[in-house]
């Protein structure tokens, strides 16, 4: 009998608090990775600072390539963006839970079309929160309607499944969505504290977590590697969890970010902050057990991890809303 050990090691992080736009992110909510290594990160921004809304383009090597879209109600605009995804033609799609719509951008970032209005009927949304594209079909997590809707890539309604509840195939404010190499679909059933697994037609297969003793605590997003290992941003515990298919935890990461090159560059121009940082203790014993508050105090830790993505090399990216960055891990 052979056993496989699983481990992740921290590599680096990309990010910087950019409240007023420019290089960095502002309360990022989702990310997508293109085959050429361009990473699209959507910033939700503060309600008081509209110009930080947008989809920033970066690489894992800390290149900042610019921004697509901006705050606004017109085609291509956004207000409360929640999810971004790429299709096989490298068009980009963005869900917005304020406007209850999905916007499609071409490869150059030009908005092409948009669809959706508020409601619970076919083709309507109540706060879409997650997008997945599989075989030219888009799956939209229609969060407040507790269902998954399916669309063609031009926005034509194809079908749906799910309803409110905690039974099999039911949801309680689901959030992120992903699939595995066999085409099965995984949904972060956020307020049911579980990940549900379906076939591509929405037939329930299994679940990890759920109930009062759940191994998961408000999971926000999920990704699955070719070996079937399941990566979960466990938003409630502020951790990245890796589980096997039966639901055993293989790895837990709390986050360990150091200073990114962008941050080092910033501090090089801030003499007083850089000097004060010489005595800075980034992680210490917290006097609270509230994971969110602990994250708010410890700079290296994940703070509100909302998205996990894998690239074609199996590198793991964890996006944190609270710290305006993503941390990168590799298998060991």
């Amino acid at each position, binding site marked *: 009998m052979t056993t496989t050990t699983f481990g992740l090691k921290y590599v680096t992080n990309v990010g910087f608090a950019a409240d007023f736009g420019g290089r960095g992110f502002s309360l990022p909510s989702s990310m997508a990775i293109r085959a050429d290594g361009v990473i699209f990160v959507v910033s939700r921004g503060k*309600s008081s600072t509209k110009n930080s809304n947008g989809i920033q383009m970066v690489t894992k090597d800390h290149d900042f390539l610019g921004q697509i879209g901006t705050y606004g109600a017109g085609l291509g605009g956004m207000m*409360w963006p929640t999810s971004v995804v790429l299709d096989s033609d490298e068009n980009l799609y963005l869900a917005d839970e304020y406007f209850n719509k999905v916007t499609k951008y071409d490869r150059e970032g030009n908005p092409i079309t948009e669809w959706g209005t508020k409601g619970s009927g076919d083709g309507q949304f109540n706060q879409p929160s997650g997008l997945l594209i599989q075989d030219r079909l888009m799956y939209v997590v229609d969060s407040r309607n507790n269902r998954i809707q399916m669309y063609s890539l031009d926005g034509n309604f194809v079908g749906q499944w799910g309803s409110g509840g905690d039974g099999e195939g039911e949801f309680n404010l689901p959030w992120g969505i992903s699939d595995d190499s066999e085409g099965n679909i995984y949904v972060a059933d956020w307020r049911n504290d579980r990940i549900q697994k379906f076939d591509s037609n929405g037939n329930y297969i299994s679940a990890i977590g759920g109930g009062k003793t759940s191994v998961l605590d408000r999971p926000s997003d999920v990704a699955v590697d070719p070996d079937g290992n399941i990566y979960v941003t466990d938003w409630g515990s502020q951790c990245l969890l890796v589980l096997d298919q039966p639901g055993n935890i293989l790895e837990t990461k709390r986050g360990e970010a150091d200073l990114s090159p962008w941050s080092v560059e*910033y501090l090089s121009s801030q003499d007083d902050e850089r000097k004060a940082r010489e005595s800075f203790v980034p992680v210490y014993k917290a006097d609270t057990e509230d994971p969110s508050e602990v994250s708010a105090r410890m700079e290296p830790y994940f703070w509100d991890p909302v998205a996990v993505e894998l690239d074609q090399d199996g590198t793991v990216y964890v996006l944190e809303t*609270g710290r305006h960055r993503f941390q990168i891990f590799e298998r060991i």
Partner: protein
Amino acid sequence: MTTIRSRQEALLMAHLLRRAGFGATPYEMDRALSMGYQAVLDDLLNPDHPDVIPDDLIRRYHVDQSDLRSGGGAHWVYRLVMTDTPLREKICLFWHRVFATGTTKLIQNRVVTNQIDMFREHGMGRFDDLLVELSRDPAMIMWLDNQDNHGSNINENYGREILELFSMGVGNYSEDDIKETARAFTGWRVVNPDYMSIRMRNNTARPYGYMSWQFEYDDDDHDDGEKIILGQKGKWNGEDAVRIICEQDATARFVSRHLYHFFVADELPVPQWPHEDPKDPEAIDVLCRSYFENDHDIGAMLRTLFESDFFKDGGSRYARIKSPSEMVIGTMRLAGPIDLPSEETYMADAACANMGQALMRPPSVEGWQGGTEWINTGAYVERVNFAGRILNDPDKQGVRDIIDRIKALSGQSTITSDELVDNCLEVLGPLEVLDTTRHGLKNYASKFGDMKWSDESLSSEFDRAAVAIIQLVVSSQEYQTI
């Protein structure tokens, strides 16, 4: 048929729910009257259920309130509107006014929100415990520079304010007491004080967003020498200073006057207290006795207050001008639950600010004085516009309930314009108004004539008339008082 007794009970209950909460919807009033005054007071003081506010929903759907760099006021507004433990929230507003701490200096909202959480936990407990927690509170430490209060070089700021603004009031201690109290609090600081101070001073969220602060006691930085505080000699630390302060008669009087000012009737502004007697000296004596007889317990003092004649008497009704937060929150609660995410919370937070009470952004360490400070022409217009805007939609759950109750009170399928006004005042309180106010409302309502709701068209017409009267009632001067 309404008896005189039940009418008086309803008026008294409405008074209690306005002062110990934010008023009542028709259903809340029904429930309260069925419980009775004493049971309602018990529930307000010791709610037997947990706070039901879904913090996870707030954090998920109000993303910029999750890290609380900004939006702290809106975050609190949601809780204030939705809470079913209103006195607990009211006491948070009370201490926020007394221990005024502002994001204007601290830059981030999270630490002030944490301070409000602390008020929620300790605000109705022993005053000694509250003052110790306040002294350990990271937001307060940074607000009053106690991270710069070193054993070798004291900073008097916190030592001065804990005596002047937080416990005893001017004239009851000496300059030496300030210095000695400051010495007692040396070494009380936050973790990473240098870096956190510079980030605050530079107003920067860079590189990775704001960091919440944690209390830390540095024994090496504490002055362990002998001190004399208010006549008591010893090697006092901060907890000892608090104990000594809380033993003082001046502290009991100061806390009592603040409670009276907030829950009973508008007093003079605090800076005048050393020179002017309280509005009701006997009431202050009653509260002081309660302070000492109940081991400095604030909850017990509140019970004394709400059970007292000086509170229950008609004279204290409408004796205070509603603070902007009381006006805004009370009106929103009338309109019904708010969804998440919602721009309403941001709008309400901004409205409070426009009316002169920016939550978590007090004008100074002295907080808000209240009373006539709240009313000027601009603020009054803002109040009237806000209340009218919030209650303008008959499809909002709360407005619908009010309209339905107005109909039900008529006891038939038709209503006169006079009845519409009377019923509206009844449902929105009961709200006691001057004859001139009632006459003005009826004069305006007379244009509607007799109304029915027997078909859809008439029902819509009635809704519009009812909303118009509701909006006029909340514009009245009586609605602006409490």
